[in-house]
């Protein structure tokens, strides 16, 4: 192989394929990547520090601003950690509302992931179609929470409100329609020859490496590791639903993409079962919690499965109304930790394909 002089290329921070403000300092040998240094922090707002001077309830809207494409899942992880700290029992109906709104959030996030990924690869149609269904999801979430993206729907002890009248039927109807839409994406994107040529055997991630580097979510499962917290250690009421965890075989970009695609079909299953079961439950959507929250001294760590991977909240209380320390284990951040090695040896054109397949959210990476 002929070696030429290596040179540096700045990819980002202002580049549409980085899905935000993210910079990669690539060292190239011709068109091959020799080394890649990910540089993040352009969106760092210091949420962990800000949280120390807010009350427990005031922190919920900050969690929205991390992964704003799946805000409900962010809220949920945080309130679960505080509930564990306080020993609050969440009413059954609230758990169901969390599952339905959380899974809709996950759906919205996955639709963005596959839509923007097909755009990264060069398929504009896939992007438009995914946004069509995402719009319906956003409308449903808006009707429930009053907000399209920054939902702040979870509360410590439950959720903000019960479903408005007829809302569950609307969700049900949408879920009936969705399989046809996913078939359409499958035909247009997944089965597309150019798409497959661009993504198969690109950015291969071995299962043992993925585990070693704490990679989670569809990026981990694309490598064939069966680890979805909803199944591995069911939180909330996830043990009541019958669903599968889609796994990949080769751990390449295509498998990661396909995992998300198949996960969407599982979302339909979960939501349909949840709607079926919630109709028989009556009761409050929020537990009786005091107006001023003062969790006892101590710490708690809780983690849930979001659309990007495992989000964990570590909350320390000193017995006052404000948390002593809040730390967030952000899946997008940790999933990027192996990017350098993942990119080495591939072409510049593959960089976009590999980065897109990890599905990062910069608000969450930089926190």
């Amino acid at each position, binding site marked *: 192989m002929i070696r030429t002089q290596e040179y540096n290329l700045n990819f980002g921070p202002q580049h549409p394929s980085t899905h935000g403000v993210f910079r990669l300092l690539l060292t190239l040998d011709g068109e091959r990547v020799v080394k890649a240094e990910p540089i993040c922090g352009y969106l760092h707002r210091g949420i962990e520090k800000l949280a120390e001077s807010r009350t427990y309830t005031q922190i919920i809207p900050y969690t929205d601003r991390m992964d704003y494409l799946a805000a409900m899942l962010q809220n949920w992880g945080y309130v679960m950690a505080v509930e564990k700290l306080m020993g609050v029992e969440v009413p059954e109906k609230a758990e169901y509302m969390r599952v339905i709104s959380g899974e809709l959030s996950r759906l919205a996030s996955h639709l963005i992931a596959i839509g923007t990924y097909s755009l990264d690869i060069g398929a504009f149609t896939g992007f438009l179609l995914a946004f069509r269904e995402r719009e319906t999801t956003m409308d449903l979430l808006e009707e429930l929470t009053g907000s399209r993206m920054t939902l702040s729907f979870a509360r410590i002890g439950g959720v903000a409100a019960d479903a408005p009248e007829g809302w569950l039927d609307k969700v049900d109807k949408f879920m009936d329609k969705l399989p046809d839409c996913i078939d359409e994406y499958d035909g247009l994107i997944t089965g597309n020859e150019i798409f497959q040529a661009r993504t198969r055997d690109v950015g291969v991630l071995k299962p043992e490496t993925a585990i070693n580097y*704490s990679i989670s979510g569809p990026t981990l499962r694309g490598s064939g590791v069966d680890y979805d917290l909803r199944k591995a250690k069911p939180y909330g009421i996830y043990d009541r639903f019958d669903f599968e965890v889609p796994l990949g075989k080769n751990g390449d970009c295509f498998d990661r993409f396909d995992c998300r695609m198949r996960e969407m079909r599982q979302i339909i299953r979960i939501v349909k079962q949840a709607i079926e079961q919630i109709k028989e439950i009556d009761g409050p959507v929020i537990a009786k919690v005091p107006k001023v929250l003062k969790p006892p001294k*101590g710490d708690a760590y809780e983690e849930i499965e979001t659309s990007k991977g495992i989000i964990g909240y570590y909350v320390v209380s000193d017995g006052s109304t404000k948390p002593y320390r809040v730390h967030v284990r952000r899946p997008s951040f940790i999933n990027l930790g192996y990017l350098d090695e993942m990119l080495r040896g591939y072409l510049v054109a593959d960089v976009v394909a590999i980065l897109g397949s990890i599905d990062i959210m910069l608000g969450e990476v930089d926190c």
Partner: protein
Amino acid sequence: MIENATALVEELGKKFDYIEVNEQSSVIVPADKLLEFMQALKDDYGMDFLTNETAADYPSENKFEVVYNISSIEKGFTIMVKTSVDRDNPELPSVFPIWGGANWQEREVYDLMGIIFTGHPYLKRILLDYDYEGHPLRKDFQWKGGRE
């Protein structure tokens, strides 16, 4: 075989005489035994997934507490391991050789809390600017703004 976190913590308490278990079932390890203990956790007990690594500052006790949440992929449970570092000399061995997942998490802790992880291959600021002064998550960090 150990099937859940409680059983594992109990077993660890019997096996290693230098660890302590607190009432929330977190394992407290002295800093000088950290690497030895973590290696045993991974090799002998199959705790192969470092979920979370972070730190908290306790100036009143003159210490940082570094917190590790470690899971087993196969069994699906998580345990919490803690260790204390002297606030005047915040140095701790890196667990990067055991779990690669510590790579960016330790850089983040270093950046925001100022704990130096010895043996980390690339301990550089990750979220803040390279020439930033101070470590914002320390309790004595002075900052402008806020709500006072």
